[in-house]
Structure formats: structure tokens, C-alpha cells
């Protein structure tokens, strides 16, 4: 809502406040003002002039030489290029020394040899927004009414000496979608009185109820419909003052009748519609829901397909307007219109909203109906418009209002006590202070014992329905700054993180300290990406948005790796070729084609390594990342979470992973061993497609870890007896996994074995094809005594012979 300061001052005394000060006051009171703009975009020295004569320029076909009277006694010679300039016109003249918007200074000039002592201006040159100009003013110079006094400053004529406050209204304050509503608000803020406009109607002898018949067949969607019949209107342009008001409010002037309906809508917040009464047979109006298959050509000449939830105004048989949204072309007021039927009604907000949304038709009218108009203003607005049409278009209203309604609206009574107000806000307001605030709001109330107020809420404030709404009014008018700052009293509860939150924080810290960068990627992705790693999105269907912004952001991610690949590719394209990334976030899984319940949101941890682990420096070579870097990340994570002993890795070949360089991550749970994710190299074909160097990825579910992780550190006594270390190297088939050897060692040597570490793996011609040598270091220790060499030799011998038996291992000497 754009509010002209000058217009507003018709309804309330604004003296003592500049536009800016008013804006500040309103903003602090809860009506935010985005900006205060001067209507004058930089015009000085432009006055009304009279074109006394026009002659062709001797040397230029398109130019005219005009003699202009600007009221100074001296006749000015002005060269003008506009096609529409003519003798006898009143026009805006920028005299020598005048300034136009854009800091354009008017100087004495010679145009093709002829002296020009100023410039005749178009509306646009005076800084008016041409989208808001009436059609006749969009081309050529601005021709002004002949009634204007010569020499009058143009800023007075066009009302440019004014400021416009742009209101950014919250949905509850639709009462301020009208000048009167804004005036009431300022009245509440300042304690000044509101002056209501005159809406007395002088009517003709003929009775309206003989000319118009109104009925409501959709009472739930329309609670009140009123109409006036106005005879003998003369359609023409509105007077300047009215055009200026509308332009200031951002509404384009059309003709006097339409302009009046718009003016009154802005004044009262009640949208009106004028029909050409002669095009409604019998003046028959019925308000009903549209029938299936019905259509209506609206004012913008579009044929609209109507649906049964849409409310229409009909002539008893066919729709002639979309209620509250837009009029129909067949009954449009035109230059030939003589008699009009003026509508003022209350349509249901939700119905209008749905219709306007569905048809993509949002108008000043629909915006107001959507937020529920004030039922108490339906009739005053109708009368106000009738009285203005009489004044400006010579139309005379028939006697009486023809209306249909489904019951009258009574102001709501809401109770609130002084104690409740102070208890809720933490203030110590007196009864008198609250009385003053209600008084300023023009809220009538009864005050009972114990400070209980019973407030009759005016219908214009439909947002106030409960005690807290009144408390808010008190708070904002008392001033939020005046509310003290206190601390909560009562029980103190200790704050803390839950275990999953603590785990995620710990992981973030460890991983970033280890040189990985955390990323946060979009939860929306393309359908193909959700299919990329089926092993990580088992038995799930993608969750699809009903109306995505684009196809590549149309479904919810099912894995994190797919998103990390996007980030890696993005960075590669910016020459960040080495990356160590991780993400902790949710993926979305469901087995439903169409959701009937929420999808499973699974917390995942994923990482991606590509390029070099470390770059070449003067003393070290660059080292490319490998599988064991990725696996090492997981091992570190499990170690930090105290889970190392229940995690194992098994070779696996999930889709889009390198078949020989990928492991399933297994965890032993009370229910058995389960895979919680994968670690491995990206399949070379996919790497090629994404133009990535060798890339290693991992992704695991966090939920099992939340449950199994142990955060209690339990101290173990340091060993008191010496350990004995034995290193061996065995030659085995390539296929024998290292974990089989170490696992065997553990199972044979049991408690006396303290650690097993693979310290070398070697393949070479000497060993023969398909063979490898694995060097293992075993450390034996007894907790309570010193092991003897013989004991260890015997035990170690068993381990070795088990290697020989189970894996045909040969001991390397």
C-alpha cells in the first residue's frame, strides 16, 4: 500500500511530522514503512503556461515555434517538437533556470537558428511514471485543463509536492490497506482524531429496487451484496486532483467512474465494481458458484475457464464478473455508458484467494477481499462512491440501496484484565495507561472491578479476536522499548547436547583437524543422481517434489556421495584439483511411489578424496590419495567412537565403485553383522565421465553408531611385564586377505597376543605369479608375569603352522 502524505492529511492532522518522521513512528508501532519517496523527482521552475500561437519552424519540419504566456507579463518564444502542441492549450513550461529530473537544467538555446526560451514538457519529462499515466498523457506534451491559472507551479498542479510512504504490511494488518485504516493507526499512535469523508447521497426520484434485483445463491461465499443504480453518467477523464491521488497510490487513472471506484477502494479498503447497467437485462444480479464448463471473458479480454469453487456474479443466467477478482468484458463501463450498477459486497477471502491464485489474477481488489474486508464499510463505501460519481460524472443515484445479506455482523467482545496484561508483558502499567491506549485505538470498552476490560473490537480490526491480541495492541502502543529486560525465574535446567549431536560435533572436529573440509550441499538433486549408488539407497524410491524449480533439483537426495561428486567436479572446474571433503547430513528414503507418510531421514557421513593427499614441497613429493587414505578415515572415526573391535571390511562390488578397490563396512550389532556403508574408489568409467582424477569415496550410516558408540573412557593399567615381538613373512596366494592372516593369529594366540600389525606386503617375480609376501609383526605379552622365550616360541609356532595349514603359506626365511 502506497500512502500519499497529502492525501492522508485529509483524514488526520499530520502537522509536526515529516513523511520520514511519520514513517519512523509507524515502523516502531508495527507498520513497517519500506521507503518514503518524494513525488517530485527533481522538478523546479516549471509553471502552467498558455500557448498563444504556434507556427512552423522555418528550417525544421518537425519543430514548431510557440509563443507562450507564463504569467510574467513577458511572452516567451519556445521551440517545441511535440506533435500534439497547439495554440490555446494550457501546458507545463520549464522556463529558463528551471530544472527537470536527472538534474537537467533549462538554458536559453537556439534550435536550428531559432531562439527558444524554455521547454514545454511531457508528463514523463516531469518525472511521472508512464505506466501510471492515463492513455492520453503517454504521448507528447502534457495538456492541462484550461481552468488552471497561468503561472501556477506545476508541482502544485500535479501534486508533486508530496511524499509517498510505502507500507510493507504483515498479513494481519490488512486494515491498513485503506487510507482510513492508516489514519486510525496514526490516530492510535498520536492520539489525534480521524476525520471521516462525506458520503451523503443526493438521489433521484426513481427507486433503485425497481431497476435492480439482487440475490445471493452462495451464502457461504458471499455474506452481503449491495448495489446502487446510477443514472445518466457522463464518462470522461477525472479531474487532476483525483488522477494525482491515484497516481500517487500507484493506480492508473482510466475514466471518472472507474477512477471513483478505485479511489473509494483506496479510501475505505472496500473494492467496488461498476457495471454498465444497460447491459444487464432487467438489472438482475445473482451471486452464485460457477457451474462446471462455464467460461467468462474478463476485462482483459481473456477467456477464463471457471471451476465450481469460483464465485461469480451473474445476470441471473450467465456470469458477468468473477466476484472480487475481475469484471467481465460484456458489462464493462465504456465511453458510451449512461447508466451504471455499482457493486459493493463482502466476498469470502478464501474463495477469492483460491480463484485469483488459480487464474494468476491478482488485483488490488482481490488482495483486499482475500484478507477479509470490513463488513461495516460495505454501505458507506458504496454511498461515498455514489456521491463522488454525482460530483464528477454527473450521475444521479436512484433512491435506495438494493441488497441481500446473510445476517448482520456484530462487533466482537474480548475480555482482558490489567493483571493479565502486566503479567504477560512484565510491565507495571496502570489502569489509566491502558484506558488511554484503548481510547486512542477507538476501541470502546467497559471496565469492571479488578481491572477487567471488556472491549468491543471494531469490525475494521478483524485481526483482534483474543485477549493476547489486545495485549499486543497495548504492548506496541506503549512501546516495545518500554518493556523491561528480565531473566526467567523458576527451575534451572542444565543444557546439553544429545549423544548423536555430540558424536556429529566430534566427527566434524576430528575430520576438519585432519585436513578435510566440510561441505553442506543441497538436499534437492536430479533423478539420475539418486540412482547412481543403489547399494547406498537400497529399495528406495526417490521422493519427488510436486512442483520443483528445475529437473536437476526435483527429488530428494538418497546418498551424500552423489552430492560430494558435484562439489568435487565444481572445484575441479575451478582448478581446485585436490580435494578432501566430508559431509554429515540426511538422505531421504521411502518405499512408497506416492508418499502417504514421511520418508525415512537417515543420517549419513560421507567423504571424498581426489587428487593429491599432499602437494609437492621442496622436501617431499606430491602423493596421490589411495584407497587406504579413505579407509584410514573410517578407521579413525571408529577408533574415536570406541568401535574398532566390532568393525570389519569385506571386499565388495557395488555399482559405480571400482570392483577391485571397494569394501563393505561391516559392523557387529546385537542383531548380527550388518553392512553400514561402503568405502572404495569410484568406478573408472564414472571418473572419466565426471572428468575426475582417481577419486575415493565412503559413505556410512550414522544411526547404528549413535547407538553403539561408547563415550566412556575406561582406564587400563599400564603393562608391568615385558613383551616379546616376533616378525614373520609368509608367502601366500594373492587372494588371501591380510585380515584372514591377522584374524587367524588372534584366534590361535588369543589373550597372550597384544597386537598384530602388517608391516609389509610385497609381490614380485621372485615369488611367482599370483603370490604375495605378507610381513607381520606379532607382540606377545602376559598381563601378570614375564613370558618365557619357550612359551612364545611354542605359541608362535602354532600360529605359523596354522598359516601353513589354512592358507598354504610358506614361511620366508
Amino acid at each position, binding site marked *: 500500500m502506497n500512502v500519499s502524505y497529502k492525501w492522508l492529511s485529509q483524514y488526520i492532522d499530520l502537522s509536526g511530522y515529516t513523511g520520514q518522521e511519520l514513517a519512523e513512528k509507524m*515502523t516502531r*508501532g*508495527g507498520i*513497517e514503512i519500506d521507503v518514503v519517496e518524494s513525488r517530485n523527482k527533481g522538478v523546479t521552475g516549471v509553471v502552467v503556461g498558455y500557448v498563444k500561437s504556434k507556427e512552423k519552424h522555418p528550417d525544421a519540419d518537425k519543430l514548431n515555434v510557440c509563443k507562450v504566456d507564463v504569467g510574467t507579463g513577458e511572452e516567451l518564444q519556445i521551440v517545441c517538437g511535440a506533435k500534439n502542441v497547439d495554440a490555446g492549450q494550457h501546458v507545463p513550461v520549464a522556463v529558463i533556470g528551471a530544472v527537470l529530473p536527472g538534474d537537467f537544467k533549462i538554458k536559453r538555446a537556439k534550435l536550428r537558428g531559432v531562439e527558444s526560451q524554455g521547454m514545454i514538457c511531457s508528463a514523463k519529462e516531469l518525472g511521472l511514471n508512464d505506466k501510471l499515466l492515463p492513455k492520453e498523457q503517454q504521448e507528447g506534451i502534457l495538456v492541462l485543463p484550461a481552468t488552471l491559472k497561468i503561472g501556477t507551479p506545476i508541482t502544485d498542479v500535479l501534486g508533486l509536492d508530496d511524499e509517498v510512504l510505502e507500507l510493507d504490511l*504483515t*498479513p*494481519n494488518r490488512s486494515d491498513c490497506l485503506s487510507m482510513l485504516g492508516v489514519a486510525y493507526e496514526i490516530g492510535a499512535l498520536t492520539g489525534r482524531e480521524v476525520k471521516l469523508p462525506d458520503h451523503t447521497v443526493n438521489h433521484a426520484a426513481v427507486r433503485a429496487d425497481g431497476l435492480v434485483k439482487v440475490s445471493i445463491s452462495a451464502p457461504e461465499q458471499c455474506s452481503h451484496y449491495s448495489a446502487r443504480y446510477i443514472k445518466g453518467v457522463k464518462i470522461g477523464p477525472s479531474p487532476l486532483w483525483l488522477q494525482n491521488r491515484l497516481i500517487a497510490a500507484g493506480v492508473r487513472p482510466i475514466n471518472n467512474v472507474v477512477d471513483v471506484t478505485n479511489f473509494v477502494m483506496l479510501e475505505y479498503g472496500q473494492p467496488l465494481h461498476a457495471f454498465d447497467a444497460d447491459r444487464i437485462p432487467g438489472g438482475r444480479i445473482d451471486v452464485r458458484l460457477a457451474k462446471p464448463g462455464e467460461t467468462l471473458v474478463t476485462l482483459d479480454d481473456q477467456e477464463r475457464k471457471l471451476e465450481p469453487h469460483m464465485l461469480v456474479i451473474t445476470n441471473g443466467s450467465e456470469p458477468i464478473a468473477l466476484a472480487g477478482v475481475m469484471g467481465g468484458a460484456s458489462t464493462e463501463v465504456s465511453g458510451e455508458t449512461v447508466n451504471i450498477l455499482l457493486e459493493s459486497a463482502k466476498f469470502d*477471502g478464501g474463495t477469492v484467494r483460491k480463484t485469483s491464485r488459480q487464474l494468476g489474477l491478482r488485483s488490488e481488489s482481490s488482495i483486499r477481499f482475500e484478507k477479509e474486508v470490513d463488513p461495516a464499510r460495505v454501505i458507506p463505501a458504496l454511498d461515498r462512491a455514489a456521491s463522488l460519481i454525482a460530483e464528477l460524472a454527473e450521475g444521479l443515484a436512484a433512491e435506495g440501496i438494493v441488497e441481500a445479506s446473510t445476517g448482520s455482523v456484530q462487533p466482537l467482545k474480548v475480555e482482558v484484565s490489567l493483571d493479565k496484561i502486566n*503479567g*504477560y508483558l*512484565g510491565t507495571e502499567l496502570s489502569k489509566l495507561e491502558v484506558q488511554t491506549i484503548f481510547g486512542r485505538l477507538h476501541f470502546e470498552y467497559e471496565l469492571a472491578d479488578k481491572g477487567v476490560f471488556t472491549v468491543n473490537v471494531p469490525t475494521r480490526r478483524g485481526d483482534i479476536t483474543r485477549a*493476547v*491480541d489486545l*495485549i*499486543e495492541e497495548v*504492548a*506496541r502502543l506503549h512501546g*516495545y522499548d518500554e518493556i*523491561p*529486560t*528480565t*531473566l*526467567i525465574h*523458576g*527451575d*534451572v*535446567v542444565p*543444557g*546439553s*547436547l*544429545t549423544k548423536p*549431536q555430540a558424536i556429529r560435533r566430534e566427527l*566434524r572436529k576430528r*575430520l*576438519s*583437524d585432519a*585436513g578435510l*573440509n*566440510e561441505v*553442506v*550441499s*543441497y*538436499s*534437492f538433486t536430479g533423478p539420475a543422481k539418486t540412482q547412481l549408488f543403489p547399494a547406498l539407497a537400497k529399495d528406495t524410491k526417490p521422493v519427488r*517434489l*510436486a*512442483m*520443483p*524449480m528445475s529437473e536437476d533439483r526435483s527429488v*530428494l537426495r538418497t546418498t551424500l556421495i552423489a552430492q560430494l561428486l558435484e562439489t568435487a567436479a*565444481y*572445484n575441479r572446474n575451478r582448478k581446485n584439483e585436490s580435494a578432501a571433503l566430508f559431509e554429515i*547430513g540426511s538422505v*531421504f528414503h521411502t518405499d512408497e511411489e*506416492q*508418499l502417504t507418510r*514421511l520418508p525415512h*531421514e537417515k543420517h549419513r557421513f560421507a567423504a571424498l578424496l581426489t587428487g593429491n593427499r599432499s602437494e609437492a*614441497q*621442496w622436501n617431499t613429493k606430491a602423493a596421490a590419495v589411495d584407497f587406504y587414505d579413505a579407509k584410514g578415515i573410517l578407521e579413525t572415526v571408529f577408533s574415536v567412537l570406541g568401535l574398532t573391535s566390532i568393525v570389519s571390511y569385506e571386499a565388495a562390488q557395488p555399482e559405480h565403485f571400482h570392483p577391485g578397490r571397494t569394501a563393505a563396512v561391516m559392523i557387529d550389532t546385537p542383531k548380527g553383522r550388518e553392512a553400514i556403508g561402503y568405502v572404495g574408489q569410484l568406478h573408472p568409467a564414472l571418473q572419466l565421465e565426471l572428468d575426475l582424477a582417481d577419486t575415493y569415496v565412503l559413505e556410512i550410516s550414522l544411526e547404528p553408531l549413535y547407538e553403539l558408540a561408547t563415550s566412556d573412557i575406561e582406564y587400563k593399567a599400564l603393562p608391568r611385564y615385558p613383551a616379546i615381538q616376533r616378525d614373520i613373512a609368509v608367502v601366500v596366494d594373492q587372494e588371501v586377505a591380510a585380515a584372514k592372516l591377522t584374524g587367524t593369529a588372534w584366534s590361535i594366540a588369543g589373550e597372550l597376543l597384544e597386537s598384530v600389525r602388517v608391516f609389509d606386503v610385497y609381490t614380485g617375480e621372485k615369488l611367482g605369479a599370483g603370490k604375495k609376501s605378507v610381513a607381520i609383526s606379532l607382540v606377545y605379552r602376559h598381563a601378570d608375569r614375564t613370558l618365557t622365550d619357550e612359551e612364545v616360541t611354542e605359541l608362535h609356532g602354532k600360529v605359523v603352522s596354522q598359516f601353513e595349514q589354512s592358507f598354504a603359506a610358506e614361511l620366508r626365511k
Partner: protein
Amino acid sequence: MKERLEGLRVEALQELQQVDSPQQLNDLRVKYLGKKGALTEILRGMGGLSAEERPVIGQVANDVRAAIESVIDEKQNAFQQAETNNRLLAETLDVTLPGKQLPTGAVHPLNKVAQEIEDIFIGLGYTIAEGPEVEEDYYNFEALNLPKNHPARDMQDSFYVTDEILMRTHTSPVQVRTMKAMKGKTPVKVICPGKVYRRDDDDATHSFQFNQIEGLVIGKNIRMSDLKGTLLQFVQQMFGAQAQIRLRPSFFPFTEPSAEVDVTCVQCGGGGCRMCKHTGWLEILGCGMVHPRVLEMGGYDPEEVSGFAFGMGVERIALLKYGIDDIRHFYTNDLRFLNQFARM
């Protein structure tokens, strides 16, 4: 015998003067003082001495040994000193060459800021509540006093999955879930961080995905003045003790009264600058007293308890805190961006 000993001293000391390598020095030590050395050789003749002579000769022998040893030690030290000096000379490094740094990665700035905010509220006795990002319309809107067709739903165009399921548009549904889980018990003191989604064309200040942190307190006699006090404590911890707050009346369907909260401009300290559009204030929060309808739907009796709620955008705080110019950086994850946050 005494003469032989004295002669040995002179000979040994003379020879030691000529020594120019540790090897030679060692050879001489063996030659004179070793088990089969010259001194031992002479002392073998001690057996033939009388009881009177023995101590005298013994004394002389000791003196001679001490004298030779002392010179050898001296020489030894000199050689070691020289060797150390040579070694130090040879070992000089270019200390300006770079060292081997420990790796440094970064927690994402959004999480870094979120954790900081969480920690402040944990310190004030709050716990952290979480909920699903895909939500039921009921929790996201209806239970927050936003029935279907409510005009305020325009404020936040949403991504629906079905008519009843959507991407949450704020973390407020977590407040509803928390209230329901508490089954009418007080006090409730939670903050709810998380991702939210709103239909918005991405530009420098808008992103269809962003993060919020909301807070909810419910108890007996919770007042709006408590809300102001809490927020003041928060901004002073977040932005420094000089930070002040200013509340402006506003509207949210789930709170009443509602307010927008401005904080003293972090750039100019309130004097007015470009960042705060010369007002001295920056808008960072929305808040209010929990609407009685919301309390009712959450299972509380608004006649018995009251509460307040507040919410802020993590991106907004991070943009202000680090002076970042474009919200899209948070989601494109350029390493050159991310790595700037690998520090205190």
C-alpha cells in the same frame, strides 16, 4: 726407576704435542697408558723395590699418569670441540624454507556459526531438539496457527511433496513436536537448529535451502520481558558486550505479540554505515510470545502457562559475522571459500 718414569713423562708429553688426529691420540693413549703400555711396563719393576721406595715411586707413577691423562683429555676435548664446530658448520639450514604443516580443514561456516549459537544457549540451560526436514503440513502449518488457506501462508511459498507432506519451511514444527513429546510438562527450554526450504529464486541474499535456529521456552509466568532479557544475553555473547537490541512490532501467526529484533550494527557499532543502511541497526531475529492457539494445540493450557519463541537465519548471522557478500557461497562449496574458515 724414578728417572725412567720422569723420562716417560717428558717423552709422552712431547709426542702428545705432535698429535693432530683423534686416532693418533688414541694410539698414544694405548702406547703409554694401555694394559700393555709403557707405564705398565715400567711399573712391573715395582716388585723389586724396597718397602720405603714403593710409596715414593707409586706417587711418582701416579703423577706421571695424571699428567699424561690430563694432556690426553685436553687434546680429546679440543678434538671434540673442533669436530662439533665442523658439524655445526656443515649442518646449517635455510630456516626460511617452509616447514611441514599439520593438515587444517574447516568445519563448514554454517555449522561453525550454528555450533557457536547452540553453545551460547546450552550455557543458558537449553537443550537441542531436532526433527524431520520432510514434514507434515499439520506440524509445519496447522499446529502453528496457520490453517489451510490462511493468507500468512503466502509469506513462505513452500515445496510440497504431496498435499499433506512438504519440505519444512521453518524449524518451528520441531517446537510443536517438542511440546507434544513433553505432554504438558514444564519447563520447556529448547533450541531447534536445522535446514529449511522455501521456494525462492537464488540470488546473493536468497537461497531455497537455508538454516534456521529457533528457540522455545514454556513455563509458568514466562513474560515478554524475559524474552527481551534472553535475547539481550544472546546478542551480547554473540556480538560483544556493547551490542544492544531493539524490538519492532511485527506479525507471525504462531506468536502474539510478535517482534522483529534488530541488533546494533556489527560494522559501525550503531553510528550508521552502508551495511545497516545508515540506521545503526541490523535485523537478525523474529520472536514473540507463543500464541495461545499454538500452546493449546501443543497440549498446554494457555491460562496456566505461557512461553516465548524466537528464530534466526544462520546464513544471515554468518554473512554478518564474516562479511560474506553472497549466500550462494555456502552451497557451492568452493574450497577456496571453505578453507578460509579453518581457523579460530
